[in-house]
């Protein structure tokens, strides 16, 4: 049984390789630039944008604060409407549940609506291990699946591919030698390729944008109509949703259906939104299951500073404005959740055992917080997690004795006393001499310190420190105060 998607390489290592791919960076900048410009234009149209953000933020906070209450309410209402609600503690349990349901119907194929949650739990691989083929139906997910690739963005997972690359892939995988490379040609190829499957395959697996506690309804937000096909044509529908996706009331959608499309794709409204409640005789699937997935989420609830991470409605706006994401793209994060939200969500879902380098994958510029439609203060959570990562590492013997840890302890001892600092500065001025280049800067530091000067020069210690300069100034009262205070340490 496969576990959650793993983070097997740290961010700096992965990023260093990806930065060499100039085509990738060009594709990413093109796509994120377009979405951000469109997003800014449609957000500027709303005079009440800040009020919508505030309401959205508080609705999500409230739902998380009373998550047990709202999940039970959802379960009761959904069950009453003919749905079946299942609970899964982790990825393995969720995958087992889905496989059992698919096998109970004797199905060898399932249709899928784009779902980050199923990517997170590696559902497709788990199905394949049981001889069940999952067919992705979102255009971008189809591109990813046919190319044996990985998603690089929450909303547009294939934004790292341009039309020529997609044309090559489709022509090869769909056996269409004469396929054109206009986006219209590629969309038409996908329509033709999937329509027969929509009409034939009777089991669908979906994610969910929102679970509505009051009514037991599920809401899915999409563009292409593949979602509507999957929600209405099959006999059996299985929805997998993280437990944090619940909102209290149907009317709360009036906030999120304004903020989500404008933030995600820069549209006033995306082409299709669907809500349904259990099963509806004569309309849609005859059997409906919801799998509520925890997989690390409930643990995050108990961290007062990090809990806001779970407010996320997966719009991807933070990725589009992030200067780090612009350079590296999504793959460097080695997680289905990339960009700023991935940098805080991934390590928490793995209890810091994986993705520990991600909280550092940020310049803390704050652009992500500015655009977040539910006001997640991502920089604040990043700093909080950096502290946790350090504590987590120091808790191990190897971490406690690492060069970093020893260096930081030495630095703490130095900075604790003015006399020790003055002595260190004096020795540093002597020791740095061989390293100062003709430019007047230190261009190459030796050994473990070389990482610092790999991409930047270091200014050498000045001939005189501020404290030395200050002590030389006339006025005995001032120097006396300083020496008294230093002597007291």
């Amino acid at each position, binding site marked *: 049984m496969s576990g959650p998607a793993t983070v097997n390489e740290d961010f700096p290592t992965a990023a260093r390789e990806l930065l060499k791919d100039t085509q990738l960076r060009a*594709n990413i900048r093109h*796509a994120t630039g377009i979405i951000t410009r469109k997003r800014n234009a449609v957000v500027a149209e*709303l*005079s*009440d944008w800040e*009020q919508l953000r*505030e*309401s959205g933020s508080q609705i999500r906070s409230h739902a998380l*604060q*009373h*998550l047990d209450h709202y999940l*039970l309410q959802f379960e009761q209402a959904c069950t009453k*409407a003919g749905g079946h609600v*299942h*609970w*899964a*503690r982790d990825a393995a*349990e969720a995958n*087992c*549940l889905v496989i059992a349901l698919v096998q109970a119907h004797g199905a060898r194929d399932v249709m899928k609506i784009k779902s980050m949650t199923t990517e997170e739990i590696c559902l497709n691989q788990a199905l394949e291990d049981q001889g069940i083929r999952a067919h992705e*139906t*979102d*255009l971008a997910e189809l*591109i990813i699946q046919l190319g044996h690739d990985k998603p690089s963005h929450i909303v*547009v997972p294939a*934004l790292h591919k341009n039309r020529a690359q997609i044309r090559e892939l489709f022509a090869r995988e769909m056996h269409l030698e004469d396929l054109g490379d206009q*986006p*219209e040609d590629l*969309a038409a190829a996908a*329509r033709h390729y*999937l*329509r027969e499957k*929509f*009409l034939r395959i009777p089991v669908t697996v979906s994610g969910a944008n929102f679970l509505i506690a009051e*009514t037991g309804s599920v809401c899915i937000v999409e*563009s292409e*109509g593949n979602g509507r*096909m999957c929600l*209405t044509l099959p006999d059996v529908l299985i929805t997998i949703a993280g*437990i944090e996706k619940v909102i209290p*009331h149907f*009317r709360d959608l*009036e*906030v999120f259906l304004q903020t989500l499309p404008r933030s995600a*794709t820069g549209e*006033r409204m*995306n*082409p*299709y*939104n*669907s*809500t*349904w*409640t259990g099963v509806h005789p*004569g*309309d*849609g699937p005859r059997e409906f299951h919801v799998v509520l997935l*925890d997989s690390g989420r*409930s643990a995050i*609830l108990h961290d007062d500073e990090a809990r806001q991470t779970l407010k996320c409605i997966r719009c991807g706006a933070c990725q589009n404005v992030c200067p780090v994401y612009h350079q590296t793209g999504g793959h460097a994060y080695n997680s289905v959740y990339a960009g700023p939200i991935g940098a805080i969500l991934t390590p928490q879902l793995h209890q810091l055992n994986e993705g520990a380098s991600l909280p550092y994958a940020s310049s803390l510029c704050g652009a992500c917080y500015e655009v977040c439609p539910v006001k997640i203060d991502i920089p604040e959570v990043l700093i909080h997690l950096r502290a946790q990562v350090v504590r987590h590492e120091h808790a191990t013997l190897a971490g406690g004795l690492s060069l970093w840890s020893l260096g930081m302890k030495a630095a703490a001892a130095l900075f604790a006393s003015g006399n020790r600092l003055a002595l260190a500065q004096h020795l540093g001025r002597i020791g740095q001499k061989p390293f100062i280049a003709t430019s007047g800067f230190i261009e190459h530091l030796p050994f473990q310190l070389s990482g610092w000067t790999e991409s930047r020069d270091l200014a050498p210690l000045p001939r005189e420190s501020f404290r030395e300069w200050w002590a030389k100034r006339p006025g005995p009262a001032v120097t006396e105060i300083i020496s008294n205070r230093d002597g007291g340490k």
Partner: protein
Amino acid sequence: MTESVNARAAILAEIRGNRPLPAADSIAQNYEAIPRAYVRSDFLSSQERVNLFESRLREYDANVYRAALKSLPEVIDHVLALRKKTRIGVPHGLPANWLLNLRLFVTGCDTHSPQELDKLEGVLTSCTVAIAVTGTIVLQHDTAHGPRKLSLVPDYHLCIVFAGQLVGTVPEAFDRLAPTATVPTTFISGPSATADIEMTRIKGVHGPRFLDVIVVVD
């Protein structure tokens, strides 16, 4: 499914931690205290609202027509003729007096299989609510809209919107939809589209690639 039962208890226990369970009415009070200072209503005249709705639909590449109620059947015929359509599905609850040229229309398709629906050239439905500021049509699927697959599988959708069904804002639409929230509901904003290839909006992937709207004004 005993594993799922165990998982349920374990997840709920983990969520609760050692917090006392608050009373349902205090949760309701907290919910009501959430600020909602956003705009609920527009301040447009009904004429301005119709104009805004039409301009939004045109931005999505939908064609928009106007009709007075008494000329609606002729306008439907006219629009279908422009599209060269000869086999249009209609849900059984659609008012029969909208249909002039009966040879154009296929009735009884509410129960058609998806394969049969795939053979239709298009579908004609009414709607529940429409939203001007976003150019959105909402079908809360009743008998005049048919089941959800009816307005999905055929490649063309002609939708009739009465001026009285048109609201200005998204919150106003929810005021109207909330009492029947558990009915399957579809929000449609233009023909199906994708921006997955280089962020270019391309019309038409899996849903209807062509959308026309007739706004009925008095």
